[in-house]
């Protein structure tokens, strides 16, 4: 019994030493790494780009994390990461919070934030709204689809976490303030996927989603412009700038990018990288 325990303790000790040794070995042959974090809208692009990038540059690790645009900007400013992902511009508050940081933005693609509704709403006739109507929905002034030409059903208003880039862009256009409060909101969700799931599960929801997340359960609305014309959420309209709620997808570095960071940004901007942007459902740079 005692012998056994001694043996097992010895084994444990050996195991410890072995693993420590293993770590040391790894530390010696340490690969360079670029840490990226931020917007979930940009995440799929960067994550896939990082995978393909490693095929060519096996010695560089691109470590990708999500969190939202706010996280990307804050963590970059606190020097926890090398590259931030953002789907909105840097706010004035962020700029004044970090006066010593030199934010350099790199546009890697364009995207539209589309007001989306559950397919049930779309099918029953609500296929286009004015920006004013959407604003009223988020302010809680329109509470039933009937008031927007739809079925007699209460609207489930899906909002996003305040620091999300999608929300900044959307609120800027719809309510004129990036961080506008939305007293009409019923749910506050985070990532695009979470919101997509919630809208698909409901039969009366409205939300804001990046163009890439629109599918048969979650339908994008057309915008009725002040002149009465209808703009559909299509890639062409986003590319030529006629869709009103668009934004740039950004990578942000602290100062001009150097070394591996530079190589990676160049890769995303290359033909290969831009193909990934397009495959992810966004609009490539010309």
């Amino acid at each position, binding site marked *: 019994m005692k012998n056994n325990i001694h043996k097992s303790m010895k084994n444990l000790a050996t195991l410890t030493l072995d693993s420590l040794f293993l770590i040391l070995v790894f530390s010696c042959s340490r690969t360079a790494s670029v840490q990226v974090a931020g917007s979930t809208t940009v995440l799929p692009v960067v994550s896939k780009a990082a*995978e393909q990038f490693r095929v060519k540059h096996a010695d560089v690790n691109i470590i990708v994390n999500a969190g939202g645009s706010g996280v990307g900007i804050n963590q970059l400013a606190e020097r926890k990461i090398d590259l931030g992902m953002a789907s909105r511009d840097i706010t004035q508050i962020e700029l004044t919070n970090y006066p010593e940081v030199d934010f350099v933005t790199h546009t890697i693609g364009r995207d539209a934030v589309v007001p989306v509704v559950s397919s049930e709403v779309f099918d029953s006739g609500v296929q286009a709204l004015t920006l004013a109507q959407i604003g009223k929905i988020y302010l809680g002034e329109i509470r039933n689809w009937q008031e927007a030409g739809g079925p007699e059903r209460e609207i489930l208003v899906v909002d996003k976490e305040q620091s999300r880039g999608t929300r900044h862009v959307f609120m800027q256009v719809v309510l004129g303030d990036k961080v506008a409060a939305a007293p009409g909101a019923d749910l506050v969700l985070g*990532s695009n*996927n979470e919101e997509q799931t919630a809208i698909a599960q409901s039969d009366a929801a409205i939300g804001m989603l990046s163009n890439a997340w629109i599918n048969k359960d979650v339908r994008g609305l057309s915008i009725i412009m002040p002149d009465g014309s209808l703009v559909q959420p299509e890639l062409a309209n986003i590319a030529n700038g006629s869709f009103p709620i668009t934004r740039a997808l950004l990578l942000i570095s602290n100062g001009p990018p150097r070394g591996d960071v530079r190589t990676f940004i160049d890769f995303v901007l290359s033909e290969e990288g831009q193909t990934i942007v397009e495959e992810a459902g966004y609009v490539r740079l010309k």
Partner: protein
Amino acid sequence: MSRELTNRVFSTATWFAAGLCGLVLFFMFAIITWNGIRAINFEFLFAASRNFGAAGGIFYQIIGSLLLILFAALICLPLALGTAIFKSEYLHNARVQKLCAILVYGLNGVPSVIFGIFGLIFFVNVLQTGVSWFVGSIILAIMMLPTVVLAAYHAINSVPEIYRESASALGLNRWQVIVKVLLPQATSGAISGLFLGLARAIGETAPIMFIATAFSGIDIPGSFLDPVTSLPTHILALAQQAVDARALENAWGASLVLISLVTVFSTLGLWGRMKLKTSSLR
């Protein structure tokens, strides 16, 4: 008659409650197994995650999770053994003992998200470690400390006084008695507690999501200061961020793998505990 009826009703109620409980819990397992088993194959277990979690597997997530808890165990074990020995061999003041118990077991009740926040403040922000798997291990070690201390303490307490006395009578000093007589017993107890602690630690998301893990781009960490990928955070990321339906399928697969790991550890722990109980009865 009405007493008899009440008895009947009561008995039916307990059956019903137990049945409902069993059904719910069975359903949980069924959902996870049914959804998970479809994703699992050789490639899933032994390939890296690709295409934003929609393709490939979860090999490095498994490795990352195991790495996290391996080092958590290595940090936790000596600390827990020392605490348990001090508690049973040196600490005789009842009031101090109670205070010590409240402090250590109070740790057991601390919500896991608080550990994450503490790690975020202390390590990531104050010590400027950045997001690092080793910090995650330290936090998980703190989290499971009470479980392991308690197990080791029990094991030491089950050593009959006569062993201690006869060892002392042979001229061994106090520390030698501890090393020769108590430590072996305490270690086996602590290890069974350790497995139970690990079973909990491996499934935790909140303590490590801010401080120790990344979504992708890392296979085996190059140093103590790198992040890792882990199973629970991978499941969270897939559930929250993935566009592809296949990614959700992979999230179920990862869940099944995670539960299997949890089951392995808790079975080892329960088995060890039972063995210890019977051996101390003898």
